[in-house]
């Protein structure tokens, strides 16, 4: 007889898989771990920012349809929102980590804001504003660069 315990095993394995796989951002116990999470967030944010820059470049050179550019810019902004929300949900483990949080969060907010500006400009087809958003994103990308892979 196999017994109910063994029969329950696949369910437990499935549950554990779901919990582990979906638990993308966990708590940070040390400063080093917090820095690593900040670095991962910087990498993800740079991806969204660079996507936004590429979309802006395509719009400025008239190489993409408005509908497509709108969707791509919106998705880049949503990705940035997700990165920021995930980082903000991590509990800083010390007061030293609070400083990191404050500075880094400001950069993440600037990135999300610039991507929002890009989305608005793309939807209204205001090329001057698209250029400005692209310039802002370029600066933010340069600021994120040193934080990636630290």
């Amino acid at each position, binding site marked *: 007889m196999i017994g109910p315990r063994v029969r329950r095993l696949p369910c437990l394995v499935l549950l*554990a*898989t779901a919990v*582990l*796989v979906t*638990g*993308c951002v966990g708590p940070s116990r040390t400063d080093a771990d917090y820095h690593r999470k900040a670095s991962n967030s910087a*990498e*993800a944010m*740079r*991806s969204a920012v*660079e*996507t936004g*820059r*590429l*979309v802006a470049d*395509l719009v400025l*050179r*008239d*190489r*993409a*349809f*408005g*509908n*497509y550019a*709108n*969707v*791509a810019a919106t*998705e880049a902004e949503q*990705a940035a929102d997700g990165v920021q929300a995930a980082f903000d949900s991590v509990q800083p483990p010390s007061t030293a980590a609070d400083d990191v949080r404050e500075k880094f969060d400001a950069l993440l907010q600037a990135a999300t804001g610039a991507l929002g500006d890009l989305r608005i400009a793309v939807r209204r087809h205001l090329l001057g504003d698209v250029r400005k958003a692209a310039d802002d994103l370029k600066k933010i990308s340069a600021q994120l660069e040193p934080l*990636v*892979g630290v």
Partner: protein
Amino acid sequence: MKKMLQVTLGILTAIGGFVDIGDLVANALTGARFGMSLAWVVLVGVFGIILFAEMSGRVGAITGRPVFDLVRERLGVRAGLANLFASFFINFLTVIAEIGGVALALELATSVNYLLWVPIVAVLLWVTIWKIKFESMERLYGLMGLCLLVFAVALWKLGPDWGSLWGDASNPTVPRGEGHPTWIYYAIALFGAAMTPYEVFFFSSGAVEERWTKKDLMLNRANVYIGFPLGAFLSLAIMACSASVLRPRGISVDTLSQVALPVSVALGKLGLAVVLIGFFAATFGAAIETLMSSGYTVAQYFGWQWGKYVAPKQAARFHVVMLVTLLLATMVTLTTIDPVKVTEYSIVLSAAALPLTYLPILVVANDREFMGDKKNSRVTNFFASIYLVIIMVVAVITIPLMLATKAGA
């Protein structure tokens, strides 16, 4: 001349039909993250699918019966049921991913949220399956899928550093900053995308639908030996485009819009229009194939009348299975679940379930009672055995790797 045209059409269909949402996402994602260092997996995967698709097409042509039907008869009810559960579950995930993929392609073209497209896509799918003949359906979306060749044109236009791409591909190493487990995890994702089980079920059932006989074995081989490698060429072009445009910028692929970016960079609006048609055709064609595969597997297991070669009234249960699958998949897609994430999980989980599909095919293709003198040759069995070992290893390590890498995060 007519035969020649049929062979050419079959090959073109196989190329266009090779790529689905799983291939689009997996190739673009790995190209952006790992460059061409995982290109070898596409080659390993395509050789495997060639091996087993040829077998299943041959089984269909010789016996006039599809693989799933014979699996139950040859391996018994229990083994057949395990096969059915695994295949149906993976198939179901793929249907969700493909429906989401069609809706996302339409969103890119219209800027109307993909969720609003989902019910319309579901209706279109049902009408297509209900009204259009099997052969016309296969050809239409297969040929439209050829639009994805625009990735190859875009790559040529981008003028990348060919030496660097070749160096990456021919000397595969884990890129700096990436761990071995993550690299292997994505290798499995690519392998799973290339060897998706629905492809063989659809191929063998298609052979019966099109009433292939011994005389059509040449057509079977042409489709598989020429069409599939050219389809793999398409996959590599997608990967190389991502490696050339997205990787240097540190862009990771999370959306379908990012997959199209390199084409837009290289070819502008015209290229973008072609690639969007390609996205639509590839995902819509694959949605039809996966839906029909769901009907095929269930109906063939229970011994019901199946197929489009008979009137829907005569194969009512087959059509009901497809309709219920479509409705459920549509409902799941409408929960706002991310179709790209579903795609990523479906290809990895399909890799974990591969032995349940490919081992029975090998057994049936070796059965002299069914196949007569057209059973597998020694060379085929030699390579198939190697693949079974690979498939077993992949199946064992997939889930632990998924946990260890947090699904490749």
